């Protein structure tokens, strides 16, 4: 369960048995070629895999440097790479014979993906979500409920993601026999980081084959945003062994690294090694080891820890980490919409922002791949708000007026 100095299973004894069984099921699945076949089949019929690799002709010309290719995880069912992990774990749940899944969710995407999987596999589903997030992310709560999930607003603590995770663990330790906790990213105690990365490796495998087919050879660089790190691990795995390909993880620079209001763990110097939520990695914490508040315009990157596998690749120098600020991200999002008719999620737009900073340093002979982890149109409330769109505000106020009348 360790990757260099990182990872592990730092868990209360009560969960040990459950993790042993999960580890066992995961290893069996991993050693059973028919499992991956079943997974591929599911993803190509229920979701839209392989997802396309889109040549961004206009952006490439605009920057006059590298040829820019975009891996389109936004075209997955439910609109993001989250589906890969969730459907994979769904198959594992079936194998383990469990009848119920639980998950935590912040902005709600992982919750929607899990509720979707639960509907598809006929599982009971409970989603823990901080009360504050429930209020902020009504649309996602609406869809989760419509897909049959029970959404539990967590009223403890800061009533956000961290507390939802705590509450999900609490549910799990009380219901270990029939319940599986569908962790949403390549973090947490082993085997989650490795297992989630395995399911997400489908991105990299496809992207590697696609870029070589379209471009004739491997790319110079691959960019991915890093929150927990699952989409980055997903695409990087297709290129990890070829040391000539530079891998760039882009974290949330928030208001700027110098302000302290950000979520950059591996870029910048604010994070330090720590152990929390069951695993060892680089955390944004104070000198006492208390986790800090993080900030990002993108809820999915707004997290204190990071995949232990990425901490390892960072320490080894295999992956370069950078940060993009909220302002840079909104500019990159706007440019991508205008030039390509593509709407990256705010999370994904971090990868775009960094790639845009660097594209013109490369030659038109070179290609780069940006992982578009999800689509932004589902985040209309966040994006329109981030752009401070006055017509949007009027629209909401007008709608509210109608509802207040009714």
């Amino acid at each position, binding site marked *: 369960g360790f990757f260099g100095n990182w990872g592990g299973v730092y868990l209360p*004894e009560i969960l*040990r048995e459950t993790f042993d069984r999960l580890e066992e099921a995961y290893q069996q699945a991993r050693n059973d070629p028919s499992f991956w076949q079943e997974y591929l089949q599911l993803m190509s019929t229920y979701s839209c895999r392989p997802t396309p690799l889109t040549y961004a002709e206009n952006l490439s010309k605009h920057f006059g440097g590298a040829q820019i290719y975009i891996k389109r995880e936004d075209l997955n069912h439910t609109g993001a790479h989250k589906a890969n992990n969730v459907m994979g774990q769904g198959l594992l749940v079936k194998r383990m014979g469990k009848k119920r899944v639980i998950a935590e969710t912040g902005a709600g995407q992982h919750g929607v993906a899990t509720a979707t999987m639960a509907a598809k596999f006929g599982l009971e589903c409970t989603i823990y979500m901080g009360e504050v997030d429930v209020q902020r992310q009504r649309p996602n709560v609406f869809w989760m409920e419509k897909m049959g999930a029970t959404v539990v607003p967590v009223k*403890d603590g800061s009533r956000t993601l961290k507390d939802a995770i705590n509450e999900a*663990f609490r549910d799990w330790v009380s219901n270990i026999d029939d319940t599986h906790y569908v962790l949403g990213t390549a973090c947490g105690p082993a085997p989650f980081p490795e297992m989630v990365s395995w399911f997400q490796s489908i991105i990299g495998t496809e992207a590697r084959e696609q870029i070589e087919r379209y471009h004739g050879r491997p790319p110079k660089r691959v960019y991915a945003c890093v929150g927990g790190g699952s989409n980055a691990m997903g695409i990087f795995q297709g290129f990890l062994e070829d040391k000539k390909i530079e891998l760039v993880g882009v974290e949330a620079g928030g208001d700027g690294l110098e302000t302290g209001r950000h979520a950059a763990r591996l870029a910048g110097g604010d994070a330090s090694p720590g152990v929390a939520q069951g695993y060892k990695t680089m955390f944004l914490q104070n000198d006492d*080891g208390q986790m800090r508040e993080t900030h990002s315009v993108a809820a999915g990157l707004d997290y204190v820890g990071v995949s232990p596998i990425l901490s390892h690749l960072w320490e080894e120098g295999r992956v370069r980490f950078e940060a993009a600020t909220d302002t840079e991200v909104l500019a990159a999002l706007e440019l991508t919409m205008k030039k390509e008719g593509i709407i990256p999620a705010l999370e994904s737009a971090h990868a775009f922002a960094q790639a845009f900073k660097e594209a013109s340093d490369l030659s038109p002979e070179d290609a780069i791949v940006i992982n578009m982890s999800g689509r932004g149109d589902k985040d209309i409330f966040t994006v329109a708000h981030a752009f401070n769109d006055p017509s949007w505000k009027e629209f909401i106020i007008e709608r509210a007026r109608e509802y207040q009348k009714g």
Partner: protein
Amino acid sequence: MTLEKILREKKKDKDILLMTHIVLGYPSFAANREVIEQMVKNGVDCIEMQIPFSEPMADGPVILKANQESLARGTRVAQCFDFAREMTRKHQIPFLFMTYYNIVFKYGEERFFQDAKEAGIKGLIVPDLPPEMGEDYFAYAEQYQLAPIIIYAPTSTPERMKTLAGSATGFIYCAARRGVTGNNSALDENFDNYLSNCRAATTLPLAVGFGIKSKADVQALIGKADMAVIGSQTIRLVDENGPKAVGPFVASLR
């Protein structure tokens, strides 16, 4: 004297020992001081003092809230050491630190053991550090002669208990049921089987925690365990009725 020895000495005069729990800095160090005074006066045998952590994954809502409010009021780890030093000098019962591994790790493991030893602490309870993950930690525990309290769970197999016992000193903390701190436990037949398994796996004293709230709960453990642990209940009491309510409550338990 080692923690185990102290507890065995105390046990000679009592059917069952009592361990209580406080969250440092919640509602304040002053209140902690008063609560501990009450506890010691009313016959508590051992106190675990929780150094608050921002991510207390194994704790239920009451202790979680106490952790977060303590931190919100600015509690630092160094203050916890100072407070421990004061308490161990003042009161003649063993004090333990309870916290999560990151607090120890970030402080520096060896330094943590050194300073805890120096502060008169007898043992550490770190629920998210299984022995497999804590080679250095358990080595320092031995070096500095602080008891690294091991936790058993109802899901632990007899083999697992044996293995865990190999790393344990002081006593074994037997979690009475699945779930987190602060909820009810059913002290039924399954529970008796569980405690027999615990007993068979180790010669160390057995402490039983999670959900103990009344004299009846404590009585039920006599003959089966060496120490009853009262956790969230005293925090609730202080929240509702203030530190003064703790003494009568503790006195009523035995």
